[in-house]
């Protein structure tokens, strides 16, 4: 394998993994605080649409990026209200988010873009890390989108918050044993509200990282499974920010491998190659992960005064 191929693989890996990294960090923070958020996919879709639409109308990709985060956060807030305040079944509510998110995104797309389910391409995409001139030769493969760097920064920030701040300790306590956290004066509801809203925010950013950087527009297939894969990555990464980040990279790598191998004169049909990332995930789960170690109170609504 030549140096060019390796750089190409690295570039595509980083490109594909970026939206998933945002979503995975969103999933981690929600699940560690004890709220299952299976609605990440729907929140990503609404973010993807908002990002592309605002990016198109304003001509400013960063404004689109921020608005996508806000749109995702709104959905996160609804999920938080249902699962924290109303103590609803979090999985059912998440599925509802996955139905409403894409439904609303396509509905709005038809309303704002003359009945089309895809938006017009944005004029300005999010810039590349090293500008439009890029790097010399095949090194240019590493001239990835700015969002890739932001995803890395978000991940590092998450690790810092989780393990080096008091608030991170609080949030982990809330997910493991909310009653104990409550007796120590931690406001369980408030922590969960913040975490689920941030979860939506990050999912929205992840969606926009797709439609403002990788493809320049929103379409029905823009977000197809990345949210679910991010959730899988979090479980694979044992509910840690760094584990989630690495799992996303691995998944991106598997997809990059598909692209690179598919381009050459390779004997395997493209459909079989396309299965590779998913087969790989299952194999890795079988071989290396073992019993999952979810946060103990994950998915259980907290009733003030209850003993568990």
């Amino acid at each position, binding site marked *: 394998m030549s140096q060019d191929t390796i750089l190409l693989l690295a570039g595509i890996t980083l490109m594909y993994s970026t939206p998933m990294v945002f979503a995975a960090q969103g999933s981690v923070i929600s699940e560690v605080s004890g709220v299952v958020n299976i609605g990440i996919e729907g929140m990503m879709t609404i973010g993807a649409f908002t990002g592309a639409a605002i990016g198109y109308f304003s001509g400013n990709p960063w404004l689109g990026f921020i608005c996508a985060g806000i749109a995702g956060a709104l959905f996160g807030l609804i999920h938080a209200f249902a699962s924290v305040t109303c103590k609803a079944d979090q999985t059912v509510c998440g599925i*509802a*988010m996955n139905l409403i998110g894409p*439904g609303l995104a396509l509905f709005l797309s038809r309303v704002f873009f003359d009945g089309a389910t895809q938006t017009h391409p944005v004029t300005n995409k999010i810039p590349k890390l090293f500008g439009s001139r890029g790097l010399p030769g095949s090194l240019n493969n590493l001239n990835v989108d700015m969002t890739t760097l932001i995803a890395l920064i978000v991940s590092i920030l998450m690790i810092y918050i989780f393990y080096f701040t008091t608030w991170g300790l609080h949030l982990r306590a809330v997910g493991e044993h909310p009653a104990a956290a409550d007796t120590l004066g931690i406001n369980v509801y408030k922590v969960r509200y913040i975490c689920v809203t941030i979860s939506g925010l990050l999912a929205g950013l992840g969606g926009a990282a797709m439609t403002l950087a990788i493809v320049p527009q929103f379409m029905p*297939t823009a977000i197809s499974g990345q949210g679910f894969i991010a959730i*899988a990555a979090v479980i*694979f990464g044992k509910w840690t920010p760094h584990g989630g980040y690495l799992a996303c990279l691995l998944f991106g790598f598997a997809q990059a491998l598909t692209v690179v191998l598919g381009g050459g004169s390779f004997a395997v*049909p493209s459909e079989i190659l396309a299965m590779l990332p*998913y087969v790989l995930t299952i194999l890795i789960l079988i071989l290396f992960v073992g019993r999952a170690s979810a946060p103990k109170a994950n998915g259980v609504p907290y009733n003030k005064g209850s003993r568990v």
Partner: protein
Amino acid sequence: MESLRKKFFSNPFVLTIIAIALGFCVAGLILLLAGYPPVESIRTLVESMIGRPKDISSVIIRSTPIIFTGLGVAFAIKTGLFNIGAEGQYIMGCVVATMVGSMLDFPKPVAVLMVFASAMLVSALYAGFVGLLKAHLGIHEVISGIMLNWISLYFSNWVCNLAFFHKPGTVGMYPVNDCTYTMILPAWKRSEEGQAWLAQYPVLKETLGRTDVNIGFVIAIIAAFVITYLLNHTRKGFELRAVGQNIHAARFAGINVNRSIVHAMMISGMLCGIGAASYITGQSPHTVSTLSAFENVGFNGLAVAFIAFSSPIGCLFTGLLFGGLLYGGAGLQSRVGAPTEIINIVIGVIVFFVALSYLIPRFVDRLDASRLNRKRAREAKKAQKAKKG
């Protein structure tokens, strides 16, 4: 003390109706904000669903596969499993049914049975694999299910493009042979004699003559009753439910928990497989085409099961509602111009309110309690007055 009102508002049926009503209200609001007439849109939607006999017949046909995946998901929920892999199991069922059906040339009952059996078997095994991973390795069924969904999608596309199965000039496989059809009198109704007979009965002509009326819905009704019986009146069903409600207690009681999980998944997958076989044998185009994205039959099954509070009999009705909305949504777009995606919003909002619906009995409870308190206070006041006087 339970008031009659609380009993009424704790009934899943009543709660579903409330959730559905709220779903339409929110959809109406969104339509209003987007500049479409809400009342007229929803009336058009309902009209396109049940306006003509042909529509009703089409809705039933459209609903059948969703009812089956809904039944599969509902069964899994009753046994404590979240079968998000229903989509993949349905796709596998479709592919296998088409593969087998396009090769067979047997007398009708044998051919139909073989297609159903092969689809059921493969879907059950595909789901059983998820169960095995969960039971023995502790891999969550949602994760393996999602991965297997994607694998089945690409497997389906791969089979579609195999030289042996690919029908030249199309994007799909060779359709299944006539001997596997499960429509009612498919050849007769197109014959001259059949046409002449149908012409005498306009309603039959519109339904039987114009749409793929098939036996799938009847099988769905039977399946719903069978799994209700299985769950509630057999030893196996008791074991499966016990594992679903408290895995530790079930293990302590001597139930083989691992085997139960695998069996529950297999039955759930098998139901998706029946749905797939009934779709392939009962509805044109009787084949599988290359998929660019999921067709959501399995995912819609999740919503169907949730809205039915995972009651198998309830799935029959929510499945019909769901199929009706999908079918009517197209009419809405062509007649009022409102985007058909409003349907997904309606369904999503219904599911959302189903998740919240248990709040209603509590709210009624609180209402009752405060009313009781007021009544007591009044009586106490009266008693005091009587004392003074």
